């Protein structure tokens, strides 16, 4: 039987890490924005802002539209958050510190990523509002395009481990990290990671040209939960990237969990920076590039890393 924590401990731990991760992400994102904008940075305000804005959203009332799909609207952010939590639960902090390490952890993570598209489509569909609906369909196109490169980019990391368990995959990176073994793996994973939580250049469903897209009708807690779930997903993607590509807990001097946190934050900075340094991609272009460039590249990556192993 594989490693896992007791359910109560797992729920509390994942919840705490999730909230902390979302907070760190909010601060980092704002900090990067300020650096790019060239504004002077006041540390106190920077650290307090996410909490203050969150409290403000709690106090605002929820909005509704003329004839929404109320159940779908309620479920979408919760589902998104639940998927982010499951994805995060798969990431080991150390060889024996992990919320859950199923033998098919890899597939569980992928399934969570796949279900995200349902959550976002549902969220865009539910308010019965034109901009939200366009956002939902854009994410449909985006998700169906990045799904396969994403699975393939991750799959290559399972080859050396001969296992679909995340702990085994990290364990197999003791001597060489996967980022070295698979030259195209991490860049592909990062591109797709940005797409999964639709950040920055791939923020197509909640884009500025749709005045917020799927989130356009949300206010108050709806907005807070949605933004929170989206940030949590990005944290989960970064953490998983750190585990399967950057060797997870492996590293000199520091204890394992510290390395995981460091690597996750490093990946987060890269993912967030893309949001401030790259213009939004056009959806048609993204679909085309995904199929014609990213999928063949991902397949090639699987083969090269496979050939290197033999």
């Amino acid at each position, binding site marked *: 039987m594989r490693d896992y924590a007791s359910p109560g401990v797992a729920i509390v731990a994942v919840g705490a890490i999730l909230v902390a991760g979302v907070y760190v992400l909010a601060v980092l994102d704002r900090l990067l924005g300020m650096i790019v904008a060239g504004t002077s940075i006041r540390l106190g305000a920077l650290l307090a802002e996410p909490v203050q804005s969150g409290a403000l959203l709690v106090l605002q009332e929820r909005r509704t539209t003329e004839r929404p799909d109320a159940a779908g609207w309620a479920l979408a952010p919760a589902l998104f958050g639940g998927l982010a939590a499951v994805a995060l639960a798969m990431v080991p902090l150390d060889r024996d510190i992990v919320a859950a390490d199923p033998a098919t952890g890899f597939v569980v993570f992928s*399934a969570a990523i*796949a279900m995200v598209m349902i959550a976002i489509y549902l969220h865009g*569909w539910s308010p019965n509002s034109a901009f939200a609906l366009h956002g939902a369909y854009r994410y449909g196109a985006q998700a169906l395009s990045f799904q396969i490169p994403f699975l393939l980019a991750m799959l290559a990391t399972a080859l050396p481990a001969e296992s679909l368990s995340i702990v085994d995959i990290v364990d197999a990176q003791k001597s060489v990290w996967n980022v070295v073994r698979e030259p195209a793996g991490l860049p592909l994973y990062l591109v797709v990671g940005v797409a999964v939580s639709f950040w920055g250049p791939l923020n197509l469903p909640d884009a500025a040209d749709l005045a917020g897209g799927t989130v356009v009708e949300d206010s108050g807690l709806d907005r807070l939960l949605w933004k929170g779930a989206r940030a949590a997903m990005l944290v989960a993607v970064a953490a998983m990237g750190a585990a399967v590509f950057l060797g997870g807990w492996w590293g000199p001097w520091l204890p394992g969990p510290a390395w995981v946190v460091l690597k996750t934050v490093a990946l987060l900075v890269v993912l967030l920076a893309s949001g401030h340094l790259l213009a939004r991609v056009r959806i048609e272009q993204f679909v085309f590039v995904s199929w014609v460039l990213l999928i063949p590249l991902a397949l090639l990556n699987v083969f090269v890393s496979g050939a290197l192993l033999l």
Partner: protein
Amino acid sequence: MNGLITDGVFWLFAVGSVVTAFRVFRTDSMMRAAFFLLASFAGVGGILALLGAEFLGMVLILMMAGEMLVMAIVMVMFMMNPAGLNPMWMVHQHRVAVVAGAGSFLALASLPFVVDLPDRPAPRPEEATAELGTELLGGSMLVFQTAGVTLLSAMIGAVVIAHRNGRFGEAEQGSLEPALEPPGEEKG
């Protein structure tokens, strides 16, 4: 205690699957129908995982998420009143459907009673995946390559049937419209 929880989770998945599957036909909204079906499949995936087929269960959920999204998109695209703003009846040929459904349920449900099931413990999940891999890869190439060619024909078929503006121009150009009385009129 453990057995009780496992049983509880099983019944949760089982009843949930049946209820959501039933809801597929009793909702007015195409989007809800598609996602109820997804929920039903997710329940089946959960049961598979409970039975020790972890990989199959998870892969089922992974696949169905994409599949049901495509289904929702296509259903909303082509069905009248896709959001069910006006009430409607999702079932056609009601009586035939009831008979066929009840019949296939009974046939499938009788299987455990007529088949001689093996009486050995299931392999551990990680071994199950590896066994599946060996089964697919080992011995004969036929399994894999048949699957490959089947999927290729599915892809080409989908493009040929669904796509209109290919590299040789519009699909209707020079083609014959099916007419009530032959010969058809040339279009385009």
